[in-house]
C-alpha cells in the first residue's frame, strides 16, 4: 500500500461538524480528513473539543450540523455500536471492557463463536490467542481481564476493535497509562495496522509520541480547527503554539539552579518501612522545602511506597518518625493528623467524588480532619473554594459545578486544592500531571516549585522524567518493588535516572 503517496481519496471525511450543549459551543464547524493507512494525531488542550469530535463521529453524541463520509459513502451512526458495525471503532483511555470476564470473553463479547446456540469456549480461546499473537501478546486468555496490567487491557481493547473489521480506529489517549516499553509494543501494533491500510486517529498528550509515529497532525482549540498539516510541515514549536495559542515558557523544562544552604529541617523519616508483597523495606527522609521524586516503571513499587507513607496501606515493618517523634501511621486519618496529604494516581476512582461540586470536593479533606461535628460554614467553604479556584486557575471558575464535568487537568487542580486547604507539611503527589493538558501541566509544575519554596515537603511520583529533573532535590529510583538507587544534586538528570531504572534488565511487563 502506498497510502501516504496517493492521498486523493480520503478514508474518512468529516465536514463542518458543530455541537453545542445548553449554549456552550463545544464544536464549531470542524473539518477532519483521514486517509487510508494514515496515523493522524488529534491534539488540543483539554476542552479543545477532541472528545466531542470523537463522540459526534461515533454517534455517542448527536451532532448539530455537519456530514461525514466513509470511503465516499455518507454515514451517520446513532450509537457507538452502530459506528463499530460501520467500521468506526474507538478505544478509550479508560478501557471500556468487563474486568471480571476473561480476556477471551472480552475479545468476543456479543459475537462469541457458537454452535447450536452454545458458546464454543475452546474455539473462542483459540481465536483469542491467535488474535493477540498478531499483536505480540502471549497471555492466558482464560484469566479475567482485571488480572492484567492496564497496558494489556488496552491492547486487548484495541485487538477487539480491530477484529471487529474496523476501517478507522480511534485511540483516545491509549498511552496515558503505559510505560515506555508498553508504548513501543503499542506502536508496533499501530504500524502493523497502518500497513493494513487502517486509518488511525491518535489522541495523546505526549508530543514525543506524535513525532515518533504520526503522519499528520490536526489541532483543535476552543472547539475550532486550529490547524492541520503533515508532520514534516509542523515543527514542535509551531505545534505547541497552535495548541496553546501562545508561546510555552522554556523554563518549564529547564532545571533551575539550586542554592544548597544548611540541611533543611527533617519533616518525616522512615526507617526500614515496607510491606510484604507491596514494597521491600526502604529508608526515606523528607525535608521541609525539598522535593523527593520517585521514578520507576509502572508497577515498580512507586505507588505502593506512597500508600504506605500515607497509611492507605499499613506497613508491616519499620518505623516512622514525624517532626522528631515516633509516629504510627495506620490509616489516612492518622497520616492527616500528622500533617500529610495525598493526591492519588487514580483520579477518578480514588480522587474525585464526581457527583459533588468543586467546592465540596475542595473542602472534603479539611472537613474530614475537623470532624463531622465542627462543620465549615457555607461562607468558609465558599471562601476556601474561591481562593483555590483563583490560585490554581480552576476552569470553569464555578465552585457549584459537579467536579465530574470538569476536564482532567482541572479535576487534578481541585484535588491539589483539597490538600492545600489542609495546609499539609508533607504533600504526596502520585502522577500529578498524568492525562492532563500541556497548560495545566506547566501550571502544576510551577505550583510544585512554589509549595516547595514555601517550605512544604513533597514526595512526588512521576513517569515524566524531564519533569522530575526540573523540580526534584532527590530522586529515588524503584525497580521490582524495591528502592534501588538514590540520586541527589547534580546527579539528577534524565540519563542518570534512565540508567538507574535500566541498570539490570527491567522485569518484562506482562505484555512482553
Amino acid at each position, binding site marked *: 500500500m502506498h497510502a501516504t503517496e496517493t492521498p486523493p481519496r480520503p478514508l474518512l471525511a468529516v465536514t463542518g461538524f458543530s455541537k453545542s450543549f445548553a449554549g*456552550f459551543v463545544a464544536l464549531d464547524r470542524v473539518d477532519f480528513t483521514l486517509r487510508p493507512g494514515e496515523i493522524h494525531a488529534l491534539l488540543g488542550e483539554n476542552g479543545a473539543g477532541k472528545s466531542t469530535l470523537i463522540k459526534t463521529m461515533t454517534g*455517542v453524541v448527536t451532532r448539530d450540523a455537519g456530514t461525514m463520509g466513509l470511503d465516499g459513502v455518507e454515514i451517520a451512526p446513532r450509537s457507538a455500536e452502530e459506528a463499530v458495525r460501520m467500521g468506526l471503532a474507538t478505544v478509550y483511555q479508560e478501557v471500556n471492557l468487563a474486568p471480571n470476564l476473561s480476556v477471551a470473553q472480552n475479545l468476543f463479547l456479543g459475537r462469541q463463536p457458537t454452535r447450536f446456540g452454545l458458546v464454543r469456549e475452546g474455539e473462542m480461546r483459540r481465536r483469542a490467542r491467535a488474535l493477540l499473537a498478531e499483536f505480540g501478546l502471549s497471555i492466558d486468555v482464560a484469566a479475567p481481564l482485571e488480572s492484567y496490567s492496564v497496558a494489556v487491557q488496552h491492547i486487548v481493547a484495541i485487538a477487539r476493535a480491530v477484529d471487529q473489521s474496523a476501517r478507522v480506529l480511534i485511540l483516545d489517549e491509549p498511552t496515558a497509562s503505559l510505560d515506555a516499553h508498553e508504548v513501543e509494543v503499542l506502536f508496533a501494533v499501530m504500524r502493523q495496522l497502518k500497513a493494513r491500510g487502517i486509518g488511525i486517529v491518535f489522541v495523546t498528550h505526549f508530543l514525543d509520541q506524535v513525532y515518533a509515529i504520526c503522519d499528520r497532525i490536526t489541532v483543535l482549540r476552543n472547539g475550532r480547527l486550529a490547524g492541520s498539516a503533515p508532520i514534516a510541515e509542523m515543527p514542535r514549536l509551531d505545534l505547541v503554539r497552535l495548541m496553546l495559542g501562545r508561546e510555552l515558557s522554556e523554563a518549564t523544562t529547564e532545571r533551575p539552579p539550586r542554592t544548597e544552604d544548611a540541611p533543611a529541617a527533617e519533616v518525616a523519616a522512615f526507617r526500614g518501612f515496607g510491606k510484604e508483597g507491596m514494597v521491600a523495606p526502604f529508608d526515606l527522609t523528607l525535608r521541609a522545602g525539598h522535593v523527593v521524586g520517585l521514578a520507576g516503571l509502572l508497577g515498580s513499587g512507586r505507588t505502593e511506597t506512597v500508600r504506605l507513607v500515607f497509611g492507605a496501606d499499613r506497613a508491616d515493618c519499620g518505623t516512622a518518625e514525624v517532626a522528631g517523634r515516633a509516629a504510627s501511621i495506620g490509616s489516612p486519618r492518622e497520616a492527616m493528623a500528622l500533617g500529610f496529604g495525598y493526591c492519588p494516581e487514580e483520579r477518578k*476512582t480514588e480522587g474525585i*467524588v464526581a457527583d459533588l461540586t468543586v467546592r465540596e470536593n475542595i473542602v*472534603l479533606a479539611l*472537613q474530614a480532619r475537623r470532624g*463531622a461535628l465542627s*462543620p465549615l460554614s457555607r461562607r468558609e467553604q465558599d471562601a476556601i473554594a474561591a481562593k483555590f479556584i483563583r490560585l490554581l486557575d480552576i476552569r470553569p471558575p464555578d465552585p457549584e459545578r459537579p467536579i*465530574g464535568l470538569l476536564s482532567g487537568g482541572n479535576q487534578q487542580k481541585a484535588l491539589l486544592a483539597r490538600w492545600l486547604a489542609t495546609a499539609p507539611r508533607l504533600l504526596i503527589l502520585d502522577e500529578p500531571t498524568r492525562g492532563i493538558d500541556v497548560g495545566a501541566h506547566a501550571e502544576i509544575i510551577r505550583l510544585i516549585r512554589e509549595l516547595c519554596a514555601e517550605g512544604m515537603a513533597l514526595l512526588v511520583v512521576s513517569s515524566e522524567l524531564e519533569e522530575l529533573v526540573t523540580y526534584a532535590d532527590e530522586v529515588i529510583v524503584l525497580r521490582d518493588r524495591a528502592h534501588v538507587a538514590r540520586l541527589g544534586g547534580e546527579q539528577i538528570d534524565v540519563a542518570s535516572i534512565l540508567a538507574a531504572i535500566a541498570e539490570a534488565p527491567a522485569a518484562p511487563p506482562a505484555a512482553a
Partner: protein
Amino acid sequence: MAMRFPRLGTSQLLALGVILLANWMVSPQFFDIRVQDGRLFGSLIDVLNRGAPVALLSIGMVLVIAMRGIDLSVGAVMAICGAIAASLADSHALPVVLAAALGAGLLCGLWNGFLVAVLGIQPIVATLILMVAGRGIAQLITEGRIVTFTSPQLAFLGGGSVLGLPTPVVLTLGMMALTLLVVRGTALGLMIEATGGNPRASALAGIGTKLITVAVYVWSGLCAALAGIVASADILGADANNAGLWLELDAILAVVIGGTSLFGGRFSILLAVVGALIIQAMNTGILLSGFPPETNLVVKAVVVLAVLLAQSPRLGGALAGLGVLFSRATSGGPRR
C-alpha cells in the same frame, strides 16, 4: 457514575400534585377538612397520618441508601419495637416504654451496621438476616398474639393530636427536623454524600467511613423504632405478624421516588418524605376510588411507573435531556 441533573424536586412535587388532583376527581370531598374533637379531619390529613410510618422509615432509609447501602430490616424492626412498646405500655411509664422501644431500634441498627461496616457483608444480605429473624423476635415477644394495651399516653402517640395535627404527623415532622439538623447542620451530610459517591476517595480524604456507615444504620433503626411505636399506638396493640410488613419496600420506593440513587451519593431527606406522601396519596386515592381491591396493585404499579418515568433523565423533558448529554460530553470516558 451517573451525573444527575440538578435536583429541584419539581418532578416529585408535580407528581404529588397530580395524584392529589386525581384523588379529588375520584372523590370530590378529598380536600375537605373540618375540625373533629379538636383535631383536623379529612382525607388530606389521612394521607399525612397514614403516610407517617413510611415517611419515618424513609428518613432513615435515605441516609442508608445515600451510603450505597440498603436496610431491608426496617419493617421487622418496626414489629419488634412496636411489640416492646405495647407489652410494656400498661405496666411502665411512657419514658421507660419509649426508651425500651427506641433502644431496641438502636441495637438493631448497631447490629446491621456491625455486619456491614465491620464484617463487610453486603448490605442487602446483612439486613436480610434481621428482616427474617426480626419478625420472629417480635412474635416471641407477643407470643404470637395481638398484644393490646390501654395506656392513654402511648395511645396519644398514635391517635392524639398536637395543634390539630395527628401526633404521628408531628412526630414525623420532628424526626425530619432532627435528622436535617444532625445531617445538614453538621458535616455528616457532606461526608455521607462523599462516601456514597466514592467510598475509596472519601476514605483517602480522611473520612471515617466505617463509623458513618454504622451511624446511618443506627439512625435507620431509630426511625424504624419510632415508626413501630406509632403503628402500635395507632391500633392500640402490637400485631407482630403484620406490623410493618413489606413497608421496607415502600420506604425504598419512597427514597427512589425522592430522587436518591440506589448507587449512593446525593440525597434529599425532604424529597424522600415527599416520596412517602406520593405513595400514601396513591393508596388513599385507591381506597377512596371504590375500585375493586383486585385492581389495587395494578393501579399502584402503573402510577409508580409513571412517576419514575417522569423522573427519568431520558424522558424528563428537553432541559433534563440536554443536561444529561452535556454531562456525557464533558465528563470524558465512554458511557453505555
